[in-house]
């Protein structure tokens, strides 16, 4: 159905303002609430440590003296948020980190809502944004990837805007440049742009002129060029693949999405809503033919949601405008225009929520927000008594905190898996499982202490078979040292 005929048959009434306004308010309030909830994030600490080092003048590509068993230099691909977080932490402690996280989540939900508003009214857009908030919930922790989710929504906004009027959005170039200094998921922004713009050119329902094709292609290439023009240079283009090589071995979030949690269910629900609603007649009684870019965007979202746990938020964001549009098709009321009044009220609401969040972050809410690794004061104190340069056989999760809190010690391995050889990481994993050969590994690294989970096989093996003693413990971890 063309826009003209749609307009001719569109009803005059809209969803009641009270209903749609309340829905938007609820979603924004929920996003603020989510942003202020405590977080259990092992990665936070090594990002802070990287930020600390960068502020001390260490280069973006440099060996980490604390990672004495690493085989490669560390490349600080996420340096901008790391420096920002380090500065914020030194200024405002955990509360400042919490506020940054809250701000990012509120921005994400707002961006998703605005994405929905391209094709739908307030109520469907709020529903899509709410679903996305739930679906992305598993990844909304204070890490640079949170910025990727926000920027992905922004970039998608730009690409979808181009589908409508074919005008290149040149502002995408600095956005990609900034994104490349924050996190490695920028490549999905480029991929989704190439996919939706490319298939729309091929569909030829409304033919793109050569000039339009040239301009869109130039924009895309300049965005890719901007990624290569950060202080890290063109090597940044290969960095995500280097990280992926080892992360696939050790990181759960790089594994396929398990369909056993509310986050993946919500994300899949977004896809299934499109499947269902696109197969049913709209409120006007017709089954609409879909544009190719809609199919490609849905395929992209489905791929992200199912392929990798860490990509679920991206998939949810990509599916959100489709969900909003599909719900809108089923409503008998017409879509409200996106007025200046709505824009200003939305901006005011976001600003007010972030101001309230800032106040709350200065209280105990902020100070007690970082729940990982828990109360480890006794362990912290005991670690401080170890000789400088001691190798610590560490649990993979707590290695980030160990790096940040005790840079004078050497963890056996840490969360920056890409700086270690893959075979070395496999030996490390086998040793943590106390599989045959674990004592050889222990001798090889000359471990002087072990900071491991209390209920782990290696904790039992060290105490029962080698006679190591408990120096300190927390509810989840135990620090062991050899009997002297």
């Amino acid at each position, binding site marked *: 159905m063309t826009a003209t005929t749609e307009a001719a048959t569109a009803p005059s009434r809209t969803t009641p303002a009270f209903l749609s306004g309340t829905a938007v308010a609820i979603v924004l309030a929920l996003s603020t609430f989510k942003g202020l909830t405590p977080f259990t994030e092992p990665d936070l600490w090594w990002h802070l440590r990287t930020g600390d080092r960068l502020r001390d003048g260490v280069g973006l590509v440099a060996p980490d003296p604390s990672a004495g068993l690493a085989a490669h230099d560390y490349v600080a691909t996420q340096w901008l948020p790391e420096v920002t977080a380090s500065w914020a932490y030194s200024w405002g402690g955990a509360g400042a980190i919490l506020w940054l996280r809250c701000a990012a989540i509120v921005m994400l939900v707002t961006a998703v809502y605005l994405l929905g508003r391209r094709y739908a009214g307030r109520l469907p857009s709020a529903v899509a944004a709410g679903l996305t908030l739930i679906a992305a919930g598993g990844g909304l922790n204070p890490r640079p990837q949170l910025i990727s989710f926000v920027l992905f929504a922004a970039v998608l906004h730009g690409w979808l805007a181009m589908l409508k009027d074919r005008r290149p959005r040149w502002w995408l170039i600095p956005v990609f440049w900034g994104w490349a200094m924050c996190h490695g998921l920028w490549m999905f922004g480029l991929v989704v742009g190439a996919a939706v713009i490319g298939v729309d050119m091929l569909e030829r329902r409304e033919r793109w002129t050569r000039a339009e094709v040239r301009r869109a292609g130039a924009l895309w290439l300049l965005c890719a060029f901007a990624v290569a023009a950060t202080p890290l240079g063109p090597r940044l283009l290969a960095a995500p693949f280097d990280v992926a090589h080892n992360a696939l071995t050790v990181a759960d979030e790089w*594994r*396929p*999405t*398990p*369909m*056993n949690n509310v986050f993946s269910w919500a994300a*899949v629900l977004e896809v*299934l809503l499109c*499947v*269902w609603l*696109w*197969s*049913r*007649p709209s409120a006007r009684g017709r*089954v*609409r*033919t*879909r544009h190719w870019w809609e*199919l490609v965007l849905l*395929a992209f979202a489905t791929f992200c949601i*199912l*392929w990798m746990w860490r990509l679920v938020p991206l998939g949810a964001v990509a599916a959100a405008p489709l969900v909003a549009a599909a719900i809108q098709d089923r409503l008998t009321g017409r879509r409200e225009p996106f007025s200046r009044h709505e824009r200003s009220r939305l901006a005011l609401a976001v600003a007010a929520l972030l101001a309230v969040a800032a106040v709350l972050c200065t209280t105990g809410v902020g100070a007690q927000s970082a729940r990982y690794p828990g109360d480890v004061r006794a362990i912290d104190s005991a670690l401080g008594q170890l000789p400088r340069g001691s190798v610590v056989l560490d649990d993979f999760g707590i290695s980030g905190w160990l790096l940040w809190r005790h840079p004078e010690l050497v963890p056996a391995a840490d969360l920056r898996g890409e700086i270690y050889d893959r075979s070395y990481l496999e030996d490390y994993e086998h040793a943590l*499982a*106390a*599989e*045959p050969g*674990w004592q050889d590994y222990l001798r090889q690294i000359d471990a002087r202490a072990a900071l491991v989970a*209390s*209920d*782990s*096989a290696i*904790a*039992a*093996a060290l105490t*029962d*078979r080698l006679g190591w003693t408990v120096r300190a413990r927390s509810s989840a971890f135990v620090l062991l040292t050899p009997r002297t």
Partner: protein
Amino acid sequence: MPRGPLAVSARARARHRGIPPAGWLALVGLAALPALAARPVSDLSPWLHLRVGAFLNAGGRFGQPDPWAPFAVHSYVPTQWLPSMATAWLYEHVGLAVVVWERAAGIGVLALALFVWGLSIARTWLALVACSVAMLAAWGGLSERPQLAGFILLVAMLVAWWRTGQDLRPRWHLVPLTWLAASTHGVWAIGLALGGVVVLGLALERRGAERKIAVLAGLLVACTAAAALTPIGPRLLLTPFSVGSQGRQFVAEWLPSSVRSPAVIAVLGLLALAWWCWIGARYRPELWRLGLWLAAFALTMSMQRTVPVGAFVALPLALDALERRFPSTTPPGLAGVAHTADAADAADVADAAGSARPAGRPLAVAALLATVVGTLVALPVSATMSRSVGDVPEGLLPALHSLPAGSRVISQADLTGWLLWEAPALAPVEDIRIESYSAEHVRRYIAAMAAEPGWAGFIADTGATEALLPSRSPLAAALSEQAKWRVVGTDRGLVLLEAPR
């Protein structure tokens, strides 16, 4: 009778009365498949089913205390009693070759069922391709277990419910079929649930046929009653839940499936194809078809063991949608119907299918004959294959047989099926019948296998004096390094350890 574009001219039908090239290819494939599928027994479950079957054939009955395992606290329900007893009886006369042959023949029959079903919906070559994809997707689940027989019966149930969805006619043969499936494997419950999806979808769209739908609801009730009337009794209706709750916690095949598995990709591909054809043809699928689509998606993504079922449901959806999106003017397969986006009413399709069946019937009969030939050819191949078995430590059998009767053994759960069969005098502290144990016991067992704190307590509490474990496992290291257990022997990556006397 078909109207307009649905009608297939008598001349066209006559022109295609012969078997097309794709049909010949299918016949060769069906004849060769059983022999190609024959392999040495590689799954670890059939050993348990042999033991169960032999036990039941000898008049044994499960109860409390469990006849085999000292720590089983729930009475074992032999839900797969029929194939277990039949196979154990045949084993006495034929030997292990029967287990090998049953799998080979089962795979042939399953492929036949899917292909003939496909022929009833779409053109021959489409049916062949889709059937091949579905078989590849299901392949991981086609092992030497009653589950394979369950799949065949499930496909028969799905065919009946699919046709009921098309014409609203009750297929009363579903009642004995459900009884047979319920006596074979727990997958019958999924067949019944998918029938429920069809009836629910029809009921929601009404189509002005409330009386017919009431009859279909009665059919569902009758099928449920049939499942409750097996020798297991009404408690069979609850076993999918009791087995599932334990399985979902601890058993790999009950865990969520991975989209990176080729099988999952294949099923999702079929489903995506079906949906793309629907919207491409601007066809509004009936609710029962959409319900089956969603059910297939859920079955595929929720559990590794239900991926094959997802494939069986996706097959007709994809074929039906393809015929609607790309209608043919030639009489396809058994259906002999040209679908078009404008004239795709389900009743018309069913009428047309009925009128044109003779066009594809020779191919279906030939496919049946090819499968029979294939299963006969598989007999000598199976006999050869049965001379070796895979992944079990046969070299340790003398040592296992020399152990005192009643010796308690800790072993990998999967391997205990083989242990129960080959060394029935031994008492495993945990075995493959996971639903017979308390969740706490299973949790402690898993922690002990990982040598986590408390493993020594589990060994002491259970009184295990022997261990049959992977040589590179944490518990093998713990027992030999700390508890000073003695290595009795090793074979195929497994080690038999014995506690110090």
